[in-house]
């Protein structure tokens, strides 16, 4: 199971490399070109040394060669820079692409999916997880290609000048991957295990910090403190045992590489002494021998980057694999008039995930410019009905009509532009008070902002803030009380200024005086608009309110409060329960 997930994640990682193929190819070419330059530099250096030592050549004879070394070295540095620029760019491009894809996905998944997620975990995956992807593209992928290319170039170069040394390297070459696989597998496994343990230790520490209040209440914090210290120490001991093995395999590999170089050196040395080999050729082989093993050894550090990327990709693939409901047709076929429309629901059925069927055949009409209040026990389908009207909950059957046009034909975005919605739990966005208002209507001017603040009785609260409308809210800023939050949401709603109002208990969290005041303002605001609202507090409804009672996803009663307040009705039962609470 775990391996198939890893496989899927690895596949996905490779797919993301598609758009940056050219960048990666360039990076690899620049890397390969550098290895050619390294060979050329080694050859020049060997020549200079040979001529200076054996031909007693002076600076006058050698200056061009030395200048050649300088130029080649500078060229190599420039290529190195280009290689890095390309591979780093590939990492950044993929990061941005993935972020874009995830944003798109979240949009498709919509509010219903988002509401059911653990935000903390998901945000970590979306930000910190995505951040670990770049090294895979900037480091691992190009290095993996170069680990094959560079030794080939070096081998070819050595072979042209000193075939015997090349033969030694060639004989070592197949052994090296064998060792790499043998030692590498053990090392990879050890480092995976270590990495997993480290994550578990980190997770455990965070778990303890998250539950610190609970630990304190049970006088367990000091015990846990000792445990944290002990766990760190135990982890150190365990890990060191693992690392000894892992590093030992690295040692074997390194020792092996050193041995190969030593064989070349000894062979070259004694063939030089016996006069069978020119110094330049011998020196050239010796200078290049370490370059042959370098890229293979560099792979070790890149394996970690791949491991982290695969782990992060697993978390992302999971999000990307969530099935998306087919979107409603969004092309507007009709133009809705801007005046308050009438709303009709006919035989509406809808289901929602684990809750099953939440709406079971709703027939309802809200005439243009009138107000209807939905009441019922929690779980009765009130909020689902609002969601269906907003186009957030796909219908299984039935129709929603706006002024006689089917919702699908009107187009969702056109329809939503007609709606102003007051949610049950309004979200405060990270940003200033003003940002929070402007998100609802970006083109609002100061006059209308001041007006809606008055309407929501928020003007005095804002006047008391030293930064006024620029006061930061949300994560890092000052917290608003539940009541102020609700009033902010009301201000936002009024700012939207659309002909259809959908309210989800607008005066909850408010004290009685403020509630009455805002109720009055809302009544004024609602004049001439079509209103569909949810009320949890039945006792506050006036006798002339039009009410529909929703129980188990069906409308069981409908009428004015005065009509429904008869003994034995579902409405009366609700009233009774509400009064008791």
């Amino acid at each position: 199971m775990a391996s198939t997930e890893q496989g899927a994640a690895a596949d996905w990682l490779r797919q993301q490399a598609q758009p940056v193929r050219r960048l990666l190819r360039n990076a690899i070419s620049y890397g390969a070109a550098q290895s050619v330059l390294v060979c050329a530099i080694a050859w020049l250096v060997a020549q200079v040394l040979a001529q200076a030592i054996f031909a007693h050549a002076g600076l006058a004879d050698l200056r061009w060669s030395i200048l050649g070394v300088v130029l080649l070295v500078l060229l190599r540095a420039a290529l190195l820079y280009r290689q890095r620029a390309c591979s780093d760019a590939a990492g950044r491009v993929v990061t941005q692409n993935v972020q874009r894809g995830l944003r798109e996905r979240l949009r498709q998944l919509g509010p219903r999916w988002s509401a059911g997620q653990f935000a903390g975990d998901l945000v970590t995956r979306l930000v910190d997880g995505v951040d670990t992807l770049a090294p895979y593209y900037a480091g691992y992928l190009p290095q993996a290609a170069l680990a094959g290319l560079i030794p080939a170039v070096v081998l070819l170069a050595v072979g042209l000048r000193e075939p015997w040394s090349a033969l030694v390297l060639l004989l070592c070459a197949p052994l090296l991957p064998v060792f790499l696989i043998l030692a590498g597998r053990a090392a990879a496994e050890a480092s995976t295990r270590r990495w997993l343990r480290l994550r578990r230790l980190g997770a455990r520490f965070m778990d303890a910090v998250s539950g610190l209040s609970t630990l304190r209440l049970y006088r367990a914090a000091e015990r846990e403190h000792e445990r944290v210290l002990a766990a760190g120490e135990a982890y150190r001991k365990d890990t060191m045992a693992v690392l000894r093995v892992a590093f030992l395999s690295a040692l074997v590999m390194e020792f092996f590489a050193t041995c190969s170089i030593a064989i070349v050196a000894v062979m070259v040395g004694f063939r030089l002494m016996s006069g069978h080999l020119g110094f330049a050729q011998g020196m050239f082989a010796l200078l290049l021998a370490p370059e042959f093993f370098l890229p293979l050894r560099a792979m070790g550090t890149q394996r970690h980057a791949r491991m982290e990327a695969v782990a992060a990709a697993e978390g992302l693939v999971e999000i990307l694999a969530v099935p998306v409901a087919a979107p409603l047709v969004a092309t507007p076929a009709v133009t809705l008039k801007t005046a308050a429309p009438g709303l009709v629901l006919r035989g509406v059925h809808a289901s929602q995930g684990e809750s099953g069927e939440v709406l079971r055949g709703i027939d309802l009409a809200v005439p243009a410019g009138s107000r209807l209040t939905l009441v019922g026990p929690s779980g009765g389908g009130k909020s689902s009905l609002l969601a269906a009207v907003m186009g957030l909950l796909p219908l299984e059957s039935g129709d929603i009509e706006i002024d006689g046009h089917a919702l699908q034909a009107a187009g969702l975005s056109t329809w939503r532009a007609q709606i102003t919605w007051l949610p049950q739990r309004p979200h405060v966005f990270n940003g200033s008070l003003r940002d929070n208002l402007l998100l609802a209507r970006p083109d609002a001017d100061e006059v209308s902002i001041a007006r809606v603040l008055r309407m929501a009785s928020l003007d005095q609260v804002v006047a008391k803030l030293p930064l006024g409308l620029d006061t930061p809210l949300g994560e890092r800023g000052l917290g608003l009380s539940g009541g102020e939050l609700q009033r902010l949401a009301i201000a936002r709603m009024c700012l939207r200024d659309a002909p259809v109002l959908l309210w989800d208990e607008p005066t909850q969290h408010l004290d009685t005086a403020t509630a009455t005041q805002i109720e009055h303002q809302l009544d004024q605001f609602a004049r001439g608009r079509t209103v569909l609202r949810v009320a949890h507090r039945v006792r506050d409804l006036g006798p002339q309110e039009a009410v529909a009672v929703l129980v188990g996803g069906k409308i069981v009663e409908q009428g004015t409060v005065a009509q429904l307040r008869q003994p034995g009705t579902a409405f009366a039962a609700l009233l009774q329960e509400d009064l008791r609470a």
Partner: protein
Amino acid sequence: MNWQRRLYELMQPQRGRMLAALGLSLLASTAGIGLMAVSGHFIASMALVGAGAAAINYYTPAALVRLFAILRTGGRYAERLCGHDATLSILARLRGWLFGRLIPLAPAALAQQRGAQLLSRLRADIDTLEQSYLGLWLPSAVAACSALVVLIVAACWSGWFALLLLPLLLFAGAWLPWRLQAVHADDAAQIDRDAEALRAAWADALAGRAELTMWGAEDAFDARMEELTAQREAARARTQRGLARADAMLAACSGIALSLALLIGVLAMQQRHLDGPGLALLAMLAMAAFEPLLPLPLAWSRLAAIKAAAQRVFELADRTPAVLDPAAPAPMPQASDLHLREVWMRHAQHGEWALRGLNLDLAAGTHLALVGASGAGKSSLAQLLGRLYPYQGSVTLGGMALDQLCADDVRERLAIVEQTPYLFDASLRDNLRIAAPNAEDTTLRRVLAVAQLDEFLRELPNGLDTWVGANGVNLSGGEARRLAIARALLVDAPVLVLDEPSEGLDALTTVALYKALAVETQDRSVLLITHRLGGIAALVDEVAVIEQGRIVTRRAVEGFAAQTTDNLRDAG
């Protein structure tokens, strides 16, 4: 005291390991340099013999080559072990230290950031700090020492070369990394800040998705996130370009040093100051000299991140706890009756008052329900009694002022089930044993039965070993809450405070739970905090109503519901 000093002091106990790793690393890198230099010399001497020069003693250089090869590979291995050992010790100590500092801060002094954000940052910051030794200080020290060794060796063969190599090494090893971190410090901070903003934006995108959809603001919001990502990637691009440039310049310096070695060596040979093997040695030395400097640009580009992480961690650790134990705690009184007089309390220093002059008496053995709307201050009272938040006014336990007592002693008397109890990513057994580390399984089963979890436990194939998952994800809300109640019962405290125990329970289970609790707590006091009146008569004798932070009425539970209903109806 600056952050480096403090960080160093935290690592101080590991000084031995750290110095050993440094020594070994230095040995390995010096051996690497020696290996190159000696083999160059050796090869040239051998070739000279081949060309007719007098035979040489090739045993000494050959032995040196072997020695250096062994020292290099072996030293690298020992250094890795030692360095990781030091880092792991630092990790253990850093986490332990920080946890100790966080204990008195939770939750009051940690409340400024929202939990998830605080934690994810903390995790990243600790990771960064752990790596500061292996990632920054060790390679820097090794580079400095081995550069010195190279210069001394170079000076033995050619003073001029050493003189010219010095500025090159200084430029590549000191100026380049220093300049890199100075120029990109702002970018590093920006990347950090933008990550933070990005996290907040994603959190908004998730929690505020419905609003964005309904306002047609998704395009605008996505555009803002795109802009934020682009801005962050632009800062990252600048940093990466700077790093690539520094690495390229380092490579160029290494090549220039090689050319200088050839140039000066050839000149010296012409003037007969240097022999052939000496020239080969200088060339190889020049090539090896820059190898220890290679990790420096990357290491130093992390400095800003390490500094920021250290400052954040220290800022957190230095916060003042909201509730401090008295210097000389009063002895614990015998009795456990609670009296609150004119108690005011708020969660933040300048926040709104949650309790506004609350008066409440809970005589020993009383079972009282505290009811009221959400936001009336019910849960604040529980947090106050648990000594998690400071208060004003007078609270006495057995006649002794609460703030004169040691908080942990108070918690021995008051077992509190929070409104949102935390469950740990551990087994059922371990979650229960938090309250009583030595409790036997039979005791655990008994309290679980009181919490109406016996049937639930029977159905679990792994019984008490069942893993509850991070914050109890494997349990339903009602199960998690009852598990927390069982945990509180293990404390066997004379006062039991239950905050919303019936949340997520159906009416039948609630009543059964209350009945079982009533039997269990016959000779204890119970403060039941709830906004749901259903079934409370099974557990409590009296009901107090809290409104806007004060008690407005208190009466016997019999007929309470009916009376309130009537009152409300009259008022309506």
